[in-house]
């Protein structure tokens, strides 16, 4: 399998979170530092749905501990890279 670059992952993540974003301006500069709750104002209850969409998109399973630490886009990229590497 071709290795995904972080930039690939970020662009796919951007597509995934789009429906949940309540602060559109936060999407203009979507990078590893982007905070899901603060910058994008995603409803915290919807983070659960973001995780499920990530699981479907990348074919991985995100356990509860990993999810707790998924505050920024960069955290999600790390989780995805880690899960992919052990598959």
């Amino acid at each position, binding site marked *: 399998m071709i290795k995904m670059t972080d930039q690939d992952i970020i662009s796919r993540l951007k597509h995934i979170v789009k*429906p*949940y974003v309540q602060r559109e301006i936060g999407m203009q500069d979507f990078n590893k530092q982007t905070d899901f709750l603060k910058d994008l104002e995603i409803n915290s*209850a*919807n983070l*659960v*749905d973001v995780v*499920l969409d990530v699981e479907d998109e990348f074919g991985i399973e995100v356990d*509860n501990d990993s999810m707790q630490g998924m505050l920024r886009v960069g955290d999600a990229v790390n989780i995805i890279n880690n899960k992919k590497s052990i598959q």
Partner: protein
Amino acid sequence: MENSQRVVVTGMGVVAPNGVGLTEFEASIKSGKSGIRFFKELEDLNFSCQIGGKPNIPEALLKEYFSPLQLRGLNSSGIIYGVMAGMDAWKDAGLTIDPDSKSPDWDNGIIFGTGILGVDKFREAIHLIDAGKTRRLGSTSVLQTMASGISAYLGGILGCGNQVTTNSSACTTGTEAILMGYERIKSGKATRMLVGSCSDHGPYVWGGFDAMRILPGTYNQNPEEASRPMSESAAGFVPGSGAGALLLEDYDAAIKRGATIYAEILGGEVNSGGQRAEGSMTAANNEAVIRCIQNALKNSGIKAEDIDAVNGHLTATTRDAVEIENWKKALSRNHDNFPYINSLKGMTGHCLSAAGSIESVAAILQLQGNYIFGNVNCNNIHPEILEKIDHSSIPQKTIQKKIKHLIKASFGFGDVNAVVIFKNINDQND
């Protein structure tokens, strides 16, 4: 908060099997258009009754009511129907929706009932849970299946800050919600209450009734003829679904903002027959029905002879003749002076928890338009009913008629009753 002790209807919305939106619905009830259809799904599931009433909602229409995020994973038909009807009633009353306001709307509340909510969503959840995949349920499983999901969705969309709740009393739910909202305004605790009810569609709602053998099994080839209230060939009620909504408002507040008034709610009554005597979990105690009607008249400050029209519960079972007898006694009428009576269920089937609100919308449209809609599938009126009242009280086709007072009743499993009285106050000569 203003309080004039008078409550009026200033907005309505409806999502019915035979019409979505007031315009389409009214055209249907005037022309006697049926919303009953055959469902292959029910045949495949070996249902005896393979027909039902389900509102027809194009995908594009949903986007006018729900955000893309709300539509993700939305699988609760009751919420879809209830939100559409509720938002329509709100807008029909000339009220605005401001999603960006920071402060709740303290004077306005919601009482929106249901029997059971989000059964299809619940089924999804059950399959995932049984497969050990509880973590895959997503965030809206609870919100779509909690009974108060419908008032919660509407509450958030409209920003209401007064009481926001859901009532449940089987097939009286919708009529009961109207009376609960009426009381809230009358007691001065709210200026406006959005009231109504919704009911999910489909095999998981209707199956239990099919199992009770109270649905018609002989009309699968001709669904539009199946729902036959007051008819000799009535073979049971046809299950339906949908939602109806009314925006109730303090009279002074309505006048002050120049709102269009559909009707005044004079009052009503709710009670129970206690499942005593002939009353049971599934049948009404007659004394309770009569008492409910008579107390509704008393609470409304009018006499039995003031009633011009009755919109009955009349589900198309053998109980229809009993209902007529109860009306006759409660209203002190004889064979030849019985008021006009009709049942919407001939066109929509029995919309269960949504019945009371959908039928109240139909009842008020009649008041507003000065007509009595015709009883469909009732060309062979049951002889037991004809012994009690004259056939001229049961119009077959829609007739033009000025109505001042209309009484509407709903009865439900658990032996519960609700009766409400609407008055046309638009006639300047009154």
